[in-house]
């Protein structure tokens, strides 16, 4: 029974890891850019959701959608106004300057929040806090269950969008070969902006779904972004099902590692697995990319 409980807990946190990592993976896969401020975007999303929850009567999951939309606009503007300029200067296949720029942006975001709001942990008070479903001996936290379901639906929706829709095809084409895609009449810049915006939108949704059970503090982003980096490599960059699988695997290792050993041993196992993947299957578990 304990194992089943741990398994359920692992899946639920793994789902949230997935939805955060999918955004990073999409940006990495399409633009070959690592958005180093990904975690800080999550932190800001959580903060916006926290304040909206405090000062508006809206349901936390309606707020989540609003934050997602806000982060979509943020990502679109950031990419089309700033990052595209840096990107156009780069000739390298994986531009390092975008990574450096977003690292600077992340620093500004987390330390500005620290200065303005202090570094204490704040927990949002929503009507979902602490509510749980009891099924026999099993206890399932309601906000975690909702977060897991939304996460899986969001990842599935993204996958369907990329596989079935016309614009999804354009995004995939650009990630495979951007010069040929441009020849086919696809606007590279717009594809990049939309991909970046989807990536930050997913982070916005994740921020919204996290606040009923995860406290907000200036460095909360790095907790998730460090895992996302590992999940992206694990699943294969740009691979949506890979990120879902990777997120669930990391969740499982963390929870079972903590059960059998300790939380820090679990973190080390995750890292060793990351190294093993780089050694034996560097393109990731579910990537068709040849590196």
């Amino acid at each position: 029974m304990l194992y089943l409980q741990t398994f359920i807990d692992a899946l639920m946190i793994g789902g949230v890891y997935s939805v955060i990592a999918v955004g990073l993976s999409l940006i990495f896969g399409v633009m070959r850019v690592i958005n180093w401020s990904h975690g800080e975007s999550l932190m800001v999303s959580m903060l916006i959701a926290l304040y909206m929850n405090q000062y508006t009567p809206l349901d936390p999951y309606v707020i989540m959608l609003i934050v997602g939309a806000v982060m979509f606009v943020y990502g679109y503007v950031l990419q089309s106004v700033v990052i595209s300029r840096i990107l156009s200067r780069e000739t390298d296949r994986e531009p390092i300057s975008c990574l450096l720029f977003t690292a600077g942006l992340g620093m500004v975001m987390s330390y500005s929040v620290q200065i303005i709001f202090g570094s204490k942990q704040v927990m949002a008070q929503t009507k979902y806090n602490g509510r749980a479903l009891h099924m026999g001996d099993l206890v399932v936290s309601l906000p975690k269950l909702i977060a897991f379901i939304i996460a899986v639906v969001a990842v599935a929706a993204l996958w369907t969008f990329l596989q079935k829709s016309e614009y999804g095809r354009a995004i995939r084409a650009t990630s495979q070969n951007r010069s040929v895609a441009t020849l086919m009449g696809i606007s590279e810049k717009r594809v990049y902006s939309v991909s970046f915006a989807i990536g930050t939108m997913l982070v916005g949704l994740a921020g919204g779904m996290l606040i009923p059970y995860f406290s907000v503090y200036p460095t909360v982003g790095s907790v998730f972004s460090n895992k996302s980096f590992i999940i992206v490599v694990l699943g294969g960059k740009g691979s949506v099902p890979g990120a879902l699988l990777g997120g669930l695997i990391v969740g499982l290792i963390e929870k079972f590692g903590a059960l059998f050993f300790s939380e820090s041993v679990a973190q080390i196992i995750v890292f060793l697995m990351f190294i093993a993947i780089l050694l034996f299957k560097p393109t990731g578990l579910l990537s068709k990319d040849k590196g």
Partner: protein
Amino acid sequence: MIDKKKLLTPKNILVTVVLLILALLPIFPTTGAYAIQLTCLTMLFIYWASAYNIIGGFAGHTSLGHACYVGIGAYVAVMLYLYGGISPWIGMFIAGIVAAVIAGIIGYVTFHMRGSYYTLSSVALLNCFRIAMAASKEIFGFKTGGAVGLKISWMGESVSGMQFVSKVPFYYIFLVFMILCVLLCWYIKNSKMGYYLAAITTNQDAASSLGVNIMQYKLMALCSSAFLMALGGAVYAFFLTSIDPLSMFNYDTSARIMLMTVVGGLGTLWGPVLGAALLVPLNEWMRASFGARLSGLSFVIYGIILMLVVMFLPKGLVSLKDKYEKRRYEKQQAKEVAVKEASVHE
């Protein structure tokens, strides 16, 4: 024969004057303890930024977890001293070798892949070490102090134990370290290795097809960088007299070292020197004048500086000089053309 004219360039004179001032600074009676402390930190960061530049600049692999090697150096040297009685002067080289081996393993795994894989794993390695050191009370039966860390207890002034009442001996250690590191960077940049690395960062496929062993040279760059970082970390530990996982395996320190190099000029000899010499005093000054409440302010400014430099000055502050000279040259050319045209018209 050495050409005297070549030696007396403005740059060489400036470097000599700065080094003379640095060498004499502790002797001046007006120099306070704060100035010594600040200069120590600045020189240490110049040393670290230059060491980082070998992998980050020359070899073109950004690392955001370079403080990992600082931490490894500090822990290995301190534990060798506390439990083995080994002098830090020897211990720091052992620490350097340990760091280089660990870096070599990570490099071997990630350099197969192009692009940002090393960057990702550098942060993962840093976090892994920090969590492991904070959680484990002992390694191989020797106490590490867990999250609290270790203290180097005072055992009287000794040169072999690197324990001094005043910070001035550390000042000279950092000064020598800094000079040697910059000289080493100069040597690497102008050696076969430097040219190969430049070829690799410019076009890896072309370099590879010309027979450059990419893995070997990248590993050489990474291992020497990690070795130097650990050496600095070991001395820094004895300078502080206490170490703990959070301050040693620190992400912010890693980011600062990277940032100084990028702001100064990635892959140039003087870029890291200039970057650290400007940004360390800025940080200390801000911390002194704004206090703990606004302690994050310097990082906000760091971040803004980094973003501005990446956007408008991608080759760093050092490239300002080239830009200035280019503009002056162009003006001179224009003037000469104008004079010529004028004479033709006459």
